[in-house]
Protein backbone atom coordinates (compact mmCIF):
# COMPACT_ATOMS: atom_id res chain seq x y z
CA UNK A 1 0.00 0.00 0.00
CA UNK A 2 2.90 2.33 0.89
CA UNK A 3 4.43 1.78 -2.54
CA UNK A 4 1.18 2.77 -4.25
CA UNK A 5 0.81 5.89 -2.09
CA UNK A 6 4.41 6.87 -2.87
CA UNK A 7 3.73 6.27 -6.57
CA UNK A 8 0.65 8.50 -6.53
CA UNK A 9 2.41 11.26 -4.60
CA UNK A 10 5.59 10.89 -6.75
CA UNK A 11 7.68 10.79 -3.58
CA UNK A 12 11.31 11.78 -4.05
CA UNK A 13 10.90 13.67 -7.30
CA UNK A 14 13.36 16.60 -7.55
CA UNK A 15 11.81 19.98 -6.70
CA UNK A 16 12.12 21.32 -10.27
CA UNK A 17 10.36 18.25 -11.69
CA UNK A 18 7.61 18.49 -9.08
CA UNK A 19 7.11 22.18 -9.92
CA UNK A 20 6.89 21.42 -13.65
CA UNK A 21 4.48 18.54 -12.97
CA UNK A 22 2.25 20.86 -10.94
CA UNK A 23 2.21 23.34 -13.83
CA UNK A 24 1.13 20.57 -16.22
CA UNK A 25 -1.58 19.45 -13.77
CA UNK A 26 -2.91 23.00 -13.53
CA UNK A 27 -3.04 23.39 -17.33
CA UNK A 28 -4.72 19.97 -17.64
CA UNK A 29 -7.32 21.03 -15.09
CA UNK A 30 -7.90 24.30 -16.93
CA UNK A 31 -8.19 22.51 -20.27
CA UNK A 32 -10.76 20.07 -18.84
CA UNK A 33 -12.63 22.99 -17.27
CA UNK A 34 -12.81 24.93 -20.56
CA UNK A 35 -14.01 21.77 -22.33
CA UNK A 36 -16.75 21.02 -19.78
CA UNK A 37 -17.77 24.67 -19.54
CA UNK A 38 -17.96 25.05 -23.33
CA UNK A 39 -20.07 21.92 -23.78
CA UNK A 40 -22.36 22.80 -20.87
CA UNK A 41 -22.88 26.35 -22.13
CA UNK A 42 -23.72 24.98 -25.59
CA UNK A 43 -26.17 22.45 -24.16
CA UNK A 44 -27.84 25.11 -22.03
CA UNK A 45 -27.93 27.31 -25.14
CA UNK A 46 -26.06 30.09 -23.38
CA UNK A 47 -23.73 30.02 -26.36
CA UNK A 48 -25.49 30.09 -29.68
CA UNK A 49 -24.28 30.51 -33.23
CA UNK A 50 -21.15 29.53 -35.09
CA UNK A 51 -19.08 32.60 -34.15
CA UNK A 52 -19.45 32.05 -30.40
CA UNK A 53 -18.74 28.34 -30.77
CA UNK A 54 -15.59 29.06 -32.77
CA UNK A 55 -14.51 31.52 -30.05
CA UNK A 56 -14.89 29.02 -27.18
CA UNK A 57 -13.35 26.23 -29.28
CA UNK A 58 -10.35 28.53 -29.91
CA UNK A 59 -10.01 29.17 -26.19
CA UNK A 60 -10.11 25.44 -25.47
CA UNK A 61 -7.56 24.83 -28.25
CA UNK A 62 -5.24 27.56 -26.93
CA UNK A 63 -5.30 26.13 -23.39
CA UNK A 64 -4.80 22.63 -24.82
CA UNK A 65 -1.76 23.78 -26.81
CA UNK A 66 -0.22 25.38 -23.72
CA UNK A 67 -0.87 22.09 -21.88
CA UNK A 68 0.94 20.08 -24.58
CA UNK A 69 3.89 22.53 -24.63
CA UNK A 70 4.24 22.50 -20.83
CA UNK A 71 4.01 18.68 -20.82
CA UNK A 72 6.76 18.47 -23.47
CA UNK A 73 8.93 20.88 -21.47
CA UNK A 74 8.37 18.81 -18.34
CA UNK A 75 9.37 15.61 -20.16
CA UNK A 76 12.58 17.16 -21.52
CA UNK A 77 13.85 18.19 -18.08
CA UNK A 78 12.34 15.27 -16.16
CA UNK A 79 14.35 12.73 -14.15
CA UNK A 80 15.34 10.00 -16.63
CA UNK A 81 13.61 7.06 -14.93
CA UNK A 82 10.41 9.04 -14.46
CA UNK A 83 10.62 10.06 -18.14
CA UNK A 84 10.76 6.41 -19.19
CA UNK A 85 7.77 5.64 -16.95
CA UNK A 86 5.86 8.56 -18.55
CA UNK A 87 6.66 7.33 -22.10
CA UNK A 88 5.53 3.80 -21.21
CA UNK A 89 2.33 5.16 -19.66
CA UNK A 90 1.59 7.24 -22.78
CA UNK A 91 2.16 4.23 -25.03
CA UNK A 92 -0.04 2.02 -22.85
CA UNK A 93 -2.82 4.62 -22.76
CA UNK A 94 -2.86 5.03 -26.54
CA UNK A 95 -2.71 1.27 -27.14
CA UNK A 96 -5.44 0.44 -24.61
CA UNK A 97 -7.72 3.18 -25.96
CA UNK A 98 -7.26 2.06 -29.57
CA UNK A 99 -7.94 -1.58 -28.72
CA UNK A 100 -10.98 -0.72 -26.62
CA UNK A 101 -12.33 1.58 -29.35
CA UNK A 102 -11.82 -1.15 -31.97
CA UNK A 103 -13.55 -3.86 -29.93
CA UNK A 104 -16.38 -1.50 -28.98
CA UNK A 105 -16.91 -0.49 -32.63
CA UNK A 106 -17.47 -4.14 -33.58
CA UNK A 107 -19.75 -4.80 -30.62
CA UNK A 108 -21.75 -1.59 -31.05
CA UNK A 109 -22.56 -2.59 -34.66
CA UNK A 110 -24.63 -5.48 -33.30
CA UNK A 111 -26.01 -3.33 -30.47
CA UNK A 112 -24.14 -5.24 -27.75
CA UNK A 113 -22.59 -2.00 -26.52
CA UNK A 114 -23.18 1.68 -27.12
CA UNK A 115 -20.88 3.71 -29.33
CA UNK A 116 -18.16 5.52 -27.36
CA UNK A 117 -18.48 9.28 -27.13
CA UNK A 118 -15.46 11.59 -27.35
CA UNK A 119 -15.69 12.35 -23.60
CA UNK A 120 -15.67 8.60 -22.84
CA UNK A 121 -12.56 8.24 -25.03
CA UNK A 122 -10.84 11.06 -23.09
CA UNK A 123 -11.78 9.34 -19.84
CA UNK A 124 -10.41 5.97 -21.02
CA UNK A 125 -7.18 7.62 -22.18
CA UNK A 126 -6.75 9.49 -18.89
CA UNK A 127 -7.58 6.49 -16.73
CA UNK A 128 -5.25 4.06 -18.53
CA UNK A 129 -2.50 6.73 -18.47
CA UNK A 130 -2.87 7.20 -14.69
CA UNK A 131 -3.02 3.44 -13.99
CA UNK A 132 0.05 2.78 -16.19
CA UNK A 133 1.92 5.63 -14.51
CA UNK A 134 1.27 4.27 -11.02
CA UNK A 135 2.03 0.68 -12.12
CA UNK A 136 5.32 1.84 -13.66
CA UNK A 137 6.38 3.67 -10.50
CA UNK A 138 5.44 0.71 -8.27
CA UNK A 139 7.40 -1.67 -10.55
CA UNK A 140 10.53 0.49 -10.29
CA UNK A 141 10.28 1.04 -6.52
Amino acid at each position, binding site marked *: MGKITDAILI*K*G*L*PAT*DARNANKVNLWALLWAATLVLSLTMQEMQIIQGAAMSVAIASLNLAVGMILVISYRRMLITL*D*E*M*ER*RIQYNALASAVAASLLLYGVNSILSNVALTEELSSSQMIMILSLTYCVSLIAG*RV*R*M*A
Partner: protein
Amino acid sequence: MNNKLKSLRSYKGWTQADLASLLGVSRQTIIAIEKGKFDPSLPLAFKASRLFALPIEQIFSDQDAI
Protein backbone atom coordinates in the same frame (compact mmCIF):
# COMPACT_ATOMS: atom_id res chain seq x y z
CA MET B 1 23.03 -4.85 -16.66
CA ASN B 2 24.93 -5.35 -13.39
CA ASN B 3 26.49 -2.50 -11.46
CA LYS B 4 28.63 -1.76 -8.43
CA LEU B 5 26.92 1.51 -7.61
CA LYS B 6 25.79 0.42 -4.14
CA SER B 7 29.23 -0.73 -2.99
CA LEU B 8 30.95 2.33 -4.48
CA ARG B 9 28.44 4.61 -2.80
CA SER B 10 28.88 2.86 0.54
CA TYR B 11 32.67 3.07 0.19
CA LYS B 12 32.38 6.84 -0.23
CA GLY B 13 29.99 7.02 2.74
CA TRP B 14 27.22 8.59 0.69
CA THR B 15 23.51 8.04 1.15
CA GLN B 16 21.25 7.34 -1.82
CA ALA B 17 19.99 10.92 -1.54
CA ASP B 18 23.58 12.24 -1.65
CA LEU B 19 24.38 10.26 -4.78
CA ALA B 20 21.08 11.27 -6.39
CA SER B 21 21.88 14.92 -5.76
CA LEU B 22 25.44 14.56 -7.11
CA LEU B 23 24.18 12.84 -10.28
CA GLY B 24 21.18 15.15 -10.69
CA VAL B 25 18.53 12.42 -10.55
CA SER B 26 15.86 11.36 -8.06
CA ARG B 27 16.58 9.01 -5.13
CA GLN B 28 14.07 6.61 -6.71
CA THR B 29 16.29 6.40 -9.79
CA ILE B 30 19.33 5.50 -7.65
CA ILE B 31 17.27 2.86 -5.80
CA ALA B 32 16.09 1.35 -9.10
CA ILE B 33 19.62 1.34 -10.58
CA GLU B 34 21.09 -0.30 -7.47
CA LYS B 35 18.37 -2.97 -7.53
CA GLY B 36 19.04 -3.57 -11.23
CA LYS B 37 15.49 -2.58 -12.17
CA PHE B 38 16.54 0.38 -14.30
CA ASP B 39 19.49 0.77 -16.66
CA PRO B 40 20.87 4.32 -16.70
CA SER B 41 21.34 6.28 -19.90
CA LEU B 42 24.83 6.66 -21.35
CA PRO B 43 25.15 10.31 -20.18
CA LEU B 44 24.23 9.25 -16.62
CA ALA B 45 26.69 6.35 -16.75
CA PHE B 46 29.44 8.79 -17.85
CA LYS B 47 28.46 11.13 -15.02
CA ALA B 48 28.81 8.28 -12.50
CA SER B 49 32.12 7.34 -14.08
CA ARG B 50 33.45 10.88 -13.62
CA LEU B 51 32.09 11.07 -10.08
CA PHE B 52 33.78 7.86 -8.93
CA ALA B 53 36.84 8.48 -11.14
CA LEU B 54 36.49 4.99 -12.59
CA PRO B 55 35.99 3.70 -16.13
CA ILE B 56 32.35 2.95 -16.97
CA GLU B 57 33.05 -0.78 -17.35
CA GLN B 58 34.27 -0.93 -13.76
CA ILE B 59 30.93 0.40 -12.54
CA PHE B 60 28.52 -1.15 -15.04
CA SER B 61 28.86 -4.50 -16.73
CA ASP B 62 26.81 -6.30 -19.35
CA GLN B 63 25.37 -9.45 -17.75
CA ASP B 64 25.09 -11.12 -21.19
CA ALA B 65 28.76 -10.53 -21.96
CA ILE B 66 30.89 -13.66 -22.33
